[in-house]
């Protein structure tokens, strides 16, 4: 189990964290073009190497933060930064795993 360096708690099991995907910046909604916006929504760099990404310390301090992680060796580098936001509420994969059940929105 990967240890993720939370800037507040210190290294924590990845199971205690939510992965929030590639760090991206939100285009200004007032001036954005469809191309820019959909880039923000859907496109990914997905490098095999260093990746800036967001995590949420969901079972710990509940802070969002951004780190750089190597996607081949799983090393982390640089002191973590405050988080940046992602377009969809859960990462795509979390949703892929969530199955159909969690989607039923009972009131």
């Amino acid at each position, binding site marked *: 189990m990967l*240890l993720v360096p939370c800037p507040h708690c210190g290294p924590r099991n990845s199971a205690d964290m939510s992965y929030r995907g590639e760090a991206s910046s939100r285009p200004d909604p007032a001036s954005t073009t469809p191309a820019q916006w959909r880039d923000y929504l859907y496109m990914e760099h997905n490098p095999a190497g260093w990746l800036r990404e967001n995590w949420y310390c969901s079972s710990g301090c509940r802070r969002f933060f951004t780190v750089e992680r190597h996607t081949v060796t799983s090393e982390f580098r640089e002191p973590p930064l*405050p988080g940046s936001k992602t377009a969809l509420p859960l990462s795509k994969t979390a949703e892929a795993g969530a199955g159909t059940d969690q*989607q039923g929105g009972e009131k």
Partner: protein
Amino acid sequence: MIRRLEPQSGEVIDRESPLKFTWNSKKYVGYAGDTIVSALLANNRQVFSRSMKYHRPRGVLTADYWDPNTTVQVGTEPNVRGAHRLLEADMKVSAQNAWPSLDFDIKAANGLFGRFLTAGFYYKTFIKPQRLWPLYEKVLARFAPGGVVDLNTPHGYHDKRYAHPDVVVAGGGPAGLAAAISAAKAGMSVMLVEQNHRLGGHLRWGTDQDRETADDLEESARDAGVEILTDSAVTGRYDDNWIAISQRDHPGVVERLIKARAKTLVVAAGLVERPYVFSGNDLPGVMLSGAVRRLINMYAVRPGNRAVVLTANAEGDAAVADLERAGVEVARVVDARAGETISKAAGSSKQLGSVTLADGSTVKADLLVTAAGWTAPTSLLNMSGDRPSYDPAAARFFPTALPDNVIATGGLVGDGSLDELIAHGISSGELAAQRAAAVKHRLRSTVTRAQNPQGPEPPVQPDRRIGLSRAPHPELYRSDTHGMVDFSEDVSSKDLVSAAAEGFDSVELVKRFTTATMGPSQGKLETVNTVAVLAEARGETIEEVGTTVWRPPYAPISLGALAGRVFEPVRVSSLHEWHTAHNMTPILAGQWIRPEHYGDPGAEVTNVRTNVGIIDVTPLGKLDLRGPDVPKLLNLLYTNKWSKLPVGRVRYGMMCAEDGVVLDDGVTGRLGEDHYLMTTTSSGAGQIWQWVEMWLQTEHPDWQVHVTPVTTGLTSINIAGPKSRELLMRLVDDVDLSAEAFEYMNVRTGTIAGVPDCFMWRIGFTGELSFEVHVPAGFGLHVWEQLIEKGADLGIGPFGLEAQRIMRLEKGHFIVGQDTDGLTKAPTTGLRALIKLDKDDFAGKPELEWALAPEAPELPVLVAITPTDPRLVPDEACQILREGTTEIVGRITSSRFSPSLQRSICLGQVTPEFAAAGTTLTVRLCDGSDATAKVMEHHAHFDPEGVRLRG
């Protein structure tokens, strides 16, 4: 023949404790300390299984955990390692892979066709006629090896734990023991894990002096405070030294998983003896040197009467000595170091009869012992990222580059005298301790709650250990004949050669084509032989060919142990006990258990519509929002406007993700100047909390808003029905509940049934006059019981989720995730007026702007639908078709029979073409027939003007 020897000085059996057991329903007796196999051998049973493909009789090969031929069924437990599992009283042991019996196995006929059943023969046959393949498949499936699962095995109790040892040592041989002792003496907490039942590794079947050393080491380890786990295995090394240990010596549980975050891992796995490949090498009576040494010295079992020994090393020589001491006639010693070897073994199908040497001579023997060398079980090292390399001079693989937190010692890294091994273990333990200390220091300075350590972090110690030398060893893989390479998979060297010739000529392809190394020992016995045969076939070196990937687990681990105690959290509201006591039919909603109804949902609806009902809606997500910037937050997350919401008012809102897809909806009320309560859908509660936090923390860290989830801090009860006001008035003194003073979509704070600090909002999903009250949860049951008591004369009754669903559908309220799906954008819901494109910004705004632009393609529309036949309730998810075609133009998303209207009612999504009121729809029912239905003018089937609700 009596096979049990006179008492041996190192024997582990207790002759005072005989144990009765059965083998294939026949009765036998062994001793405590025996393994199943040693007890059976002592009883002169030699054949333990039939091989997978050819059903050849198989006897003992390694006499340890990895023995491929002695896997048996014990009671309901399949695939028990008979040469490892200790005998217990009244064990019922049976052979697994033989029919009708071990002695006479019909499938052995396969053996006759051996030359045709070459590797990959399946792929080349049963092609035509294809319709017969399912039949063939059924026949092939009968040949599946392994034991039988008893489908009545109960859901057992399993256990698990975490651990944070400084050092984990895998392997309790002399090297591992020495490392554990020295690490513990350096002040580290150490876990020593040994797969066998006793510590000592190979010393256990060595000389008296070896055993004495083992006992001494064991005692020192205990004295040093090492945590010792026997009959346990390190099954995996994962990221950041997350170590999986299967523990089998813990009282009360059969096997438990320990998840250890080790600061350093010492791998002292020793060596696994490797079989030699030659014709007849799988005949019963052909054994490895380690097997005979274990059998004689530990179990006092005579492995045969007349032996030939092929030896390439000291272990083989020691086996000769052991055999002679045990009274076995050693007919011939074949010394590989002198260039001698054997060519083939022959005999009856069940017993070795003679051995032919490479020089052509034949020796009669019922035992052939081979000491052909070792495989380094580098599995844990590979899992740590290492790619071991092959040394032809020593005829085995050695580690190359290990991460700092993994240290190898003992036979894995080299050879030496016992003293040298121990010395290497000691220095490895010291190194492990130093490195663990550095990690410990770092953790204590980075984990905030830890006590900060003194002084600077010690540097990572370079490896200054004096290495072990590598003893030269002949490369002894295959003789001049072909034989078994993978005993469990029945793959011969000939299969490998022909697979390579066919083009499956890389080690990965040959593995997949022949299944070599894919059996229970996962290559520990067969990998190097496979590679060696392939290298020979391709004219390459073993290093060039390389090995297949070693993967976890190191040793198989039960699903029960992996599962452990199943933690599946269950959430209930403060009213759960009441529901249970009142006949609720429960329904699972995520982690929540809720009342679906209390017997008759239809009657519950009618009661709400005529009297008053109460429903427990505690799981409704509730976020307490405080701070001056809450309106900004609401404006950002909801599609509608929030700046002007007065204190005491509530408003409905819809949230979208940035792609414009509906994410959640709910009501938010302003409780005070800077104090709001947001509600979300029950299933969205967790996700929306995170969503809110994300926007605040990442996009607007300057906004002053504090978010507190209070979902279960408040027991939420909806009191609905024409008599709801009357009822609530009986319990509330400090709030004016009159229609004039407390209007629809308002919120008040007050005391209910003596409980202060309750919120009451006038809203409702049911379409009736209703009050949703939120009561501090510790008093929830009190308020609920008071409602029931005080409402008795008003006809009060509880209602469940189903009644609520019916009523909301009568009112045409949609449910996010049921009437919308993962692609439903906000305008589809029909709530166009709630999408305020004149706001500067809100989540998903650009997409909604584009979706609503005149030139944009029209989106599907959510409409209320009424089937022509009022009795007909189309199932939810029925498709709506263009008449006379199978073209899908929509689907029913919700449907129920309405007790209030006495007809069926639906919501559905349709393409714009079919969305106009009055359009006739064709609904394809589940039984394949079609029904017609009409699109209605309003979403609300019932009371479209909302008179009742506002009453």
